[in-house]
């Protein structure tokens, strides 16, 4: 069973998006990237990202990741901040350490695309 199914599918992701997005907006390391974005559009993107990270049905590709982040001049700190917020979200949702590790591994797999390496 994927973590996506374990957490409760699409509905659970909606709840996770709110928690995750709130943490990201409150994080001084990365919040400025979100100043001018449309909240609904951004939430939809985060939902797609979380669905992928949790092993749910998704159409996310490395190319999308690369294209979306290309002009943002991101570095390791930014990437780490997102992964930390993701882990904290999962902890808040009562996800086990082991499963969090699995999600972090999926996130790490797109790192080069995000940082445009």
């Amino acid at each position, binding site marked *: 069973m994927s973590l996506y199914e374990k957490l409760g599918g699409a509905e659970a992701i909606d709840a996770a998006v709110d928690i995750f*997005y*709130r943490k990201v907006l409150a994080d001084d390391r990365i919040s400025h990237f979100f100043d001018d974005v449309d909240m609904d559009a951004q*939430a939809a993107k985060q939902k797609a990202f979380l669905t992928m990270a949790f092993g749910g049905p998704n159409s996310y590709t490395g190319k999308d990741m690369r294209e979306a982040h290309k002009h943002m001049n991101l570095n390791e700190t930014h990437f780490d901040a997102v992964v930390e917020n993701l882990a904290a979200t999962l902890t808040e949702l009562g996800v086990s350490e082991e499963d969090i590790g699995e999600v972090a591994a999926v996130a790490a797999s797109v790192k080069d695309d995000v940082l445009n390496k």
Partner: protein
Amino acid sequence: MAKIHFENEAYSLNEGDSVLDTLLEAGHDIPFSCKEGACQSCLMKLEEGSLPPESQAGLSEVQVKLGYFMSCSCKPSADLKVAQVDAGQLTVESKIITIDQLNDSILRLRLEAVFDFLSGQYISIWIDDNTTRSYSLASVKAVDNFIELHIKVIPDGIFSDKYCRRLNIGDKLKIQGPIGKCIYATNNKSQALLLAGIGTGLAPLYGILRDALHQGHEGPIHLIVGAKQASNFYLVEELNQIAAKNSQVKVTFIAQENNNQSACETGDLYQYVAEQYPSTKDMRVYLCGAKTFIKKLRKQCFLAGADRDCIHMDVFLPG
């Protein structure tokens, strides 16, 4: 490149352009107003092809079945054949019952309730074949049985000044709607509600507040009305009376500048909300007014804990 087939011609859609942009550029007279997928005055009808879902967001089930879509929000990736919808099919006539002045710059228009509506929704008024203006509904259908609009008169404004000032009781207006989801909707009658608006953002909030009370809402309701100057406030007496009669209701008027003329708070609305509500967790929030105001306060309330789907918004777009 996708093509738009319209009245026996085909037009290529430029990257990023909507069906509306394309047809306007080709010289067609397509009615439109907000260009942001809200007013629905640019509705067209699909004849062939498939529509991007966002072009039908907020439309009624019947409208979707009829193939209506908002041409301003329609950026298809494949060819579409489309047709114009006769305004007569979108609108109904409603007679003006009363017109009065709420303060120096705000008119109150009451119209016959020619359709069912929920307080906080909005309608578009057709001024001529190509021009509409949208206004939010301040009345409660079950209580008032009329449509009430608060209209800020903008000097030389096409509707609010030039058109509105010539209107008389008994005149008929062509109206379209109701549209929108910024309404009193909760299964939890004891949930705390925060209603915040600036200017005529009070109109939908006035409706939502009275609708909530009519439906027996028991939880605390805090209405916060902001304005630049204390003299901009309206319906002050009426709102204070509602608060006096209903112990769960609190009404706050907050002005940036107060020339000592009224009993209102002075200061910054965002800061006031932050101080009063360090946590908005589990609250239901209604925000009405200009886009910048809503964007800022929405983010603030979301960060303070309110769920995204518990923040309702009525964004006022320039016509």
